[in-house]
């Protein structure tokens, strides 16, 4: 997971949020007040609720666009559980918490991109080994 999670306050503008996402080349921000997690805002939310509705980014607040009470996972859970949760809820970003505190963020892109080795190992374990497939196929 990524431990250096970027955050924003609910009262800031979408223009501010977009600038932070662009600067750090990330697809979401966690919305917090002090240390309390209030929600999550993704590039998807901005596309749907700002660009597609033709709203002004400088006049729209993070709190109007963010998703409240996002699905989260405890940091002591297995990575397979995180994958299942993301699949089940159809989400691409999963905040990781320890107790009440935010400690990291796990994304679909992390799993898919940083883990090609994991995919190779899994496909090696899976029922149809590559060699057999080549012969059959």
């Amino acid at each position, binding site marked *: 997971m990524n431990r250096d999670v970027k955050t924003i306050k609910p009262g800031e503008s979408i223009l501010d949020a977009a600038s932070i996402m662009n600067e750090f080349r990330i697809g979401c921000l966690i919305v917090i007040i002090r240390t309390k997690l209030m929600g999550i805002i993704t590039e998807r939310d901005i596309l749907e609720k700002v660009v597609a509705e033709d709203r002004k980014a400088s006049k729209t607040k993070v709190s109007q666009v963010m998703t409240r009470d996002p699905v989260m996972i405890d940091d002591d859970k297995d990575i397979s559980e995180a994958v299942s949760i993301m699949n089940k809820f159809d989400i691409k970003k999963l905040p990781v918490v320890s107790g009440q505190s935010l400690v990291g963020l796990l994304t679909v892109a992390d799993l898919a*991109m940083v883990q090609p080795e994991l*995919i190779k190992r899994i496909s090696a374990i899976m029922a149809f080994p590559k060699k057999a497939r080549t012969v059959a196929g």
Partner: protein
Amino acid sequence: MFVKELMHRDVKTTASDATVLEAARKMTQNNIGCLIVVNDTLEGIVTERDMLNKIVSSSRDPSQVRVRDIMTRDVVSVSPDKDVEEATDIMSKHRIKRLPVVFGNEVVGIITSTDIVSILSKAIREIYSQQ
């Protein structure tokens, strides 16, 4: 597993002279993160990221900007006959989340990082069920 077994065949497209507002609405309606820009052949790709970067951050009006002004032109793609592992390597190397599948000059599908994770999830379940 081959790319053609995993890819989505129903690729949503846009013309390059459509407005960004039209493109954003099409992406929202179809619940997808990108559109392929076609004009007979693959011309480019436009993603949520392009809209964030080149519209929202720059305070431009999406109804006044054309897709061709913000799309990515040099699109990385994969052939349908390649292995999914190879597609994953390409996505990882280029740090992209969406990979058009091209056969000849035609876009025949798209594969995304979400699709990769869905096989991961399925594979993990199978491994656990075998234990």
